[in-house]
């Protein structure tokens, strides 16, 4: 991977995995992660307060204009990180936990239990994800929590399948055979000898999925199944913007926010992919 043509100084100072896309991705994601904490400090106005006249175009007072109620779009966009990013993290963590656990058990125990789980995975993955998420979210009722549950239901099978494949491969290795010969108990073999070797692809895939989960959450909010007003959530802000079609600035801020944060995660994923798979170069 190390490019010998680079000057020595750069090779020593910049780690070899830090390519330009990776650096841009990390910078963007870091910015939005900071916003999760710093939005109350950085944002010029309260995101819920009516601070100006309605539908004002961008100006020095309101950099991204005001929305149909006279709230500051920039402040709402910055506060949006506070909703979108933690939700995405929670959804991915839950989906990975359920999926990895069920996938691991399915791969290790196998038999009827194992195939039952995998058939459930097959059926769930048979739906176009957006439609299934919509149906589940609508059945549970609108709200960010229900949208999150819907997304976990849609997403866990991905990790279950991934984990099962990993476990099936690792359990055939020699050190597992040695552990069996040494008389280790079945749970001990699974948790101590197999699982520690299975996590890498799952963690990588989870990192890359964060962006997609943010996109799905925004889509659900956009059609009114996620965050409820007046929450400053990016998807529902774009929905407001669609109603105020001729005031383009209402949807501009949240749109750019989603685009950049998802692009950031995708850049990181792209960089990881190049690093882990030198064949593609």
């Amino acid at each position, binding site marked *: 991977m190390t490019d010998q043509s680079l000057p020595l100084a750069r090779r020593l100072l910049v780690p070899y995995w830090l390519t330009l896309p990776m650096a841009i991705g990390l910078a963007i994601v870091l910015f939005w992660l900071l916003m999760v904490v710093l939005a109350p400090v950085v944002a010029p106005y309260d995101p819920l307060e009516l601070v100006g006249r309605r539908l004002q175009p961008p100006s020095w007072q309101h950099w991204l204009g005001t929305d149909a109620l006279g709230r500051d779009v920039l402040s709402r966009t910055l506060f949006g990180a506070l909703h979108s990013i933690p939700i995405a993290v929670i959804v991915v963590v839950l989906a990975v936990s359920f999926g990895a656990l069920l996938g691991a058990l399915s791969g290790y125990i196998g038999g009827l239990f194992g195939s039952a789980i995998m058939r459930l995975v097959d059926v769930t993955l048979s739906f176009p*994800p957006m439609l299934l998420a919509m*149906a589940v979210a609508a*059945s549970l009722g609108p709200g960010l929590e229900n949208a999150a549950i819907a997304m976990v239901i849609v997403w866990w099978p991905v990790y279950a399948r991934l984990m099962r494949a990993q476990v099936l491969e690792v359990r055939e290795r020699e050190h597992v055979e040695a552990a069996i010969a040494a008389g280790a108990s079945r749970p001990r073999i699974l948790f101590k000898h197999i699982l520690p070797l299975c996590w890498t692809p799952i963690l990588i895939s989870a990192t890359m999925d964060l962006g997609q989960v943010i996109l799905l959450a925004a889509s659900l909010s956009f059609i009114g199944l996620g965050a409820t007003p007046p929450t400053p959530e990016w998807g529902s802000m*774009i929905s407001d913007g669609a109603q105020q079609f001729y005031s383009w600035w209402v949807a501009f801020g949240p*749109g750019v926010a989603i685009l950049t944060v998802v692009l950031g995660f995708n850049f990181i994923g792209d960089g990881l992919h190049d690093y882990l798979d030198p064949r593609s170069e």
Partner: protein
Amino acid sequence: MLTSGWVFVNNHRTVSSGQTSIFGSMHPCEGAKLEKGQPLTRFILKRLFAMPFLVLGIVTLAFLLTTVTKGDPLTAILSDRQLNDPEAVKAAMARWGLDRSLPERYFIYVRNLLSGDLGTSFVTRRPVLTDVLFRLPATLELVGAAMVIGSTIGISLGVLAAYFKNSWIDHLARLFALVGSSVPVFWMGLALLYVLSVKLGVVPGPGRLDPRASLPPTVTGFMTIDTLLAGEFKLFANALWHLLLPAFVLGWAVSGTISRLVRANMLEVLGREFILTARAKGAGELRVVIRHALRNTLVPTLTVISYSFAYLLTGAVLTETIFSWPGLGSYAVGAARALDFPAIIGVTLVGGIIFLLTNLITDIAYVIANPRVRLG
């Protein structure tokens, strides 16, 4: 999101089954896993055999959704007005067996489905199946056009990126691909509609035809085909013109994935010896790239294009809302907003079955088209 290309390149025996999301918010689709030495017919039979079970699974999940619906399952079947009418409530209880046990209700649900009864939409007051079939052509037209646009852009960019590897063209193509899979389609639709239609006036506004245009008689439900059948060439041009922007918005996201895959495969093929031979024999560069290299990447490319169908169905839901496109997507969104359960569960059911069938056809076509798999 790029893992698909990697899997294709590494192992032609495994169709996709990528580790991570291949198409934006789409799942890695289950690909065909043909084991070495397994006869082709047995593989196809096995896949066909699994189909009814998957469909049954989809139906079961849809049934479970009707039971978790908040409160009384009757609210999932009847409208508010009908709920106040004891006669209607009684009739619905009998038809869907709501006074019986859960397993019995399940059988009744399946029986109703088999006779094409998906319930009645609260909003349109028509059977859900009628609504779905009425709106399906508009969605298929949009998705089809998006597939054409997406694969044209994707293949061209992929070939250029591979040929001019690591040049600014390559980087620009990568950026275009990444932006395509990162941008929310509903926002991109709004933005392009505002800039191109309102500000510049170069594309028409939302809808399938100009508002004042007279509709051609509905034959197939595909606006482009119906206008041609009616012999209205001006209307046909108008329909195509209206199709352009939504199909582009939808196709962009897919074009990114396709271009990355084509690039990876082209890079591998361009390094092979038969390319060197072709060049040594004096074939022009264009001929080498198109005839010799691109042709050898066709199978994985076609596969990824047909798998992109799932992403397009997902994207169509949101694109249709922005472009007032009277398809399944806007129907589903309207249903979701109005908490019209029979409609939304019906659309999900139909979407799942369409998705399943496309994937099956793709898998089978893949193993038939790829001699390495067939003779493996």
